[in-house]
């Protein structure tokens, strides 16, 4: 009996285990190993076996403490992840709630509009905002404001540190991320029996009261899911940031997060320092794992997952 159960279990789990092992665990172990070596410029022959202990970590922590660029990057990471996360999750929720109360055809149009950023290629999408926030008078925002007479000379938005740069990267990524929450929340709202809403309306509840007292509590589960998911993806995302920084739209220090720093250090121009990048990547992973774990724990995700739907043997 037990053997059979194990067999079934391994049958269903093996694809997953292979995937996780191949694409996550092995690279992770490899990364951890590299973080303890002197690996540079992908020169595996020379450095792969040169174990240096915690040297890379010591360097990194020294930089955390003393290198203004790294300090800026850390601060940027915190601000970027924090604020974009709030915008993503709350924006998605607001959009889902908003479209819940309008008729279906306008709701679909609104949803499609918000999906556009997600559907367009990263380069195209980033290019749109590159021109929008461009620091010269070809920038859409600048030209509009100048035409309106609000400003007389163009403002280099992304080069104004720190908040100018932060605002641009938060805006651009915030817009992309909203659609994810919107879709998850919309589908969860649509699963709430419509009689619950009708009952509340007959009893005199406004759209706001219906949202606050009924809809939001009933999407709690999805809320936690979106929150955790977006947190982890914001912590590790860098493609948009990479382009915006490379194109000089935003300030390098205040437009770079830890994820982009890892990428640049490992694969960027100039000297590539994979040992240092790996150490930073390990720290980023630890933050991600801790963060994810704390979210799950604090918000009792686990308990909710385990709430039984009948006894399962």
């Amino acid at each position, binding site marked *: 009996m037990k053997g059979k159960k194990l067999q079934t279990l391994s049958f269903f789990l093996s694809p997953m285990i292979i995937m996780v092992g191949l694409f996550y665990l092995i690279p992770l172990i490899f990364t951890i190993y590299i973080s303890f070596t002197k690996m540079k410029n992908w020169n595996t022959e020379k450095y792969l076996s040169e174990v240096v202990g915690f040297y890379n970590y010591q360097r990194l922590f020294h930089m955390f403490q003393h290198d203004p660029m790294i300090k800026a990057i850390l601060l940027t990471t915190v601000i970027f992840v924090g604020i974009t996360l709030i915008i993503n999750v709350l924006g998605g929720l607001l959009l889902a709630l908003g479209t819940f109360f309008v008729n279906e055809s306008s709701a679909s149009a609104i949803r499609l509009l918000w999906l556009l950023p997600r559907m367009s290629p990263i380069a195209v999408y980033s290019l749109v905002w590159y021109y929008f926030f461009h620091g010269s008078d070809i920038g859409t925002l600048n030209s509009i404001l100048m035409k309106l007479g609000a400003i007389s000379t163009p403002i280099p938005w992304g080069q104004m540190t720190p908040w100018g740069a932060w605002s641009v990267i938060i805006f651009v990524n915030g817009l992309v991320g909203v659609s994810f929450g919107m879709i998850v929340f919309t589908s969860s709202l649509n699963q709430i*029996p419509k*009689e*619950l809403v*009708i*009952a*509340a*309306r*007959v*009893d*005199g*509840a406004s759209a706001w*009261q219906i949202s606050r*007292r*009924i809809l939001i*509590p*009933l999407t709690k589960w999805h809320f936690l899911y979106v929150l955790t998911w977006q947190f982890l993806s914001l912590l590790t995302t860098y493609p948009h940031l990479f382009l915006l920084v490379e194109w000089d739209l935003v300030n390098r220090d205040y437009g770079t997060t830890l994820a982009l720093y890892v990428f640049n250090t490992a694969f960027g121009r100039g000297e590539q320092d994979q040992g240092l990048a790996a150490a930073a990547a390990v720290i980023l992973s630890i933050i991600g794992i801790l963060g994810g774990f704390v979210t799950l724990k604090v918000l009792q995700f686990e308990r909710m997952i385990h709430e039984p739907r009948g006894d399962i043997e």
Partner: protein
Amino acid sequence: MMGMVGITLEEITKKFGNFTALNKINLKIEDKEFMALLGPSGSGKSTLLYTIAGIYKPSSGKIYFNDKDVTETPPKDRNVGLVFQNWALYPHMRVFKNIAFPLELKKSSRNEIEKKVREVAKMLHIDHLLDRYPWQLSGGQQQRVAIARALVKEPDVLLLDEPLSNLDALLRLEVRAELKRLQKELGITTIYVTHDQAEALAMADRIAIIREGKILQVGDPDEVYYKPMYKFVAGFLGSPPMNFIHAEVEGGNIRIYQSKISVPKQYREIIKRLEITEVLFGFRPHDAEIIRGEREGIKGEVYSFEPLGREQIVTIAVNSDVFVKVFAPEGEHFSFGEKVTIVPNEERVILFDKKTEKALEYFP
């Protein structure tokens, strides 16, 4: 306690796109009346109920509560209590909160909420369940909570949308009696939607039969049962349903396949006046006798018989593909293929026009 409210529906039409869900509904519900809205699934019952509640706006027509036109009044100002088939309890609120919710929305004081919730919970025998979540309750208990939530705000009108159909048969009978009594005790104008004819007959003061968005007949249970206006009404009420057989009128007689019986007294004049030659001959399974030997009646062969305790249902083939059901007393013995004669109770026979399926006595 409750105000006096009669409801008048005037030419109510409701369209969803091109689809007409309600078609010129005219209906008057008296103050304190228990009106059942009876019809098959998809006939527009819920739509009508939601229109009365104000959830849907009619495409045309008017709704009056007493003399007041409420067609444009939002749901919250109509003071109606609504109970759903699936009960629609808020799963994240305890029973107390569920019942208190309408009062909280009305901004009642804490004390008043406490008092009223306990009062109504006691009335419905759920005062020991106030701390539970809906999923910790049985179906019958959830249903009581739903009714309590609808009653707690002392509505002028109680609207019930198939509130018993998710309960098992035995419990349904019990709650049925209790609900009827509660309605009379509270004296609250009630519209009760159901597709279960037995429920409508048992509980309502009057029944409105609805099909495809149109009201076919309104009357008290006796009236719609014994004097159905349409074949549909006759067939929908009563179980097993009324028998309908194709028949031809020949002078003073009616020919039903090989048999010939005289036209029932009450129809002689109408048939002559309308010069009708084809009818549907209708009689209920309880309104006929099975006879052996020669008598005027409908001849047939016993096809099957099902004892039901105190009586049995006998299915008789009048023709190779025409069957009727007739009740017989428990002691009587039948055998398959036995030749018998069905003698309908003349007074209870109902003749319908073949084309319009309307009962002949309702022809002008």
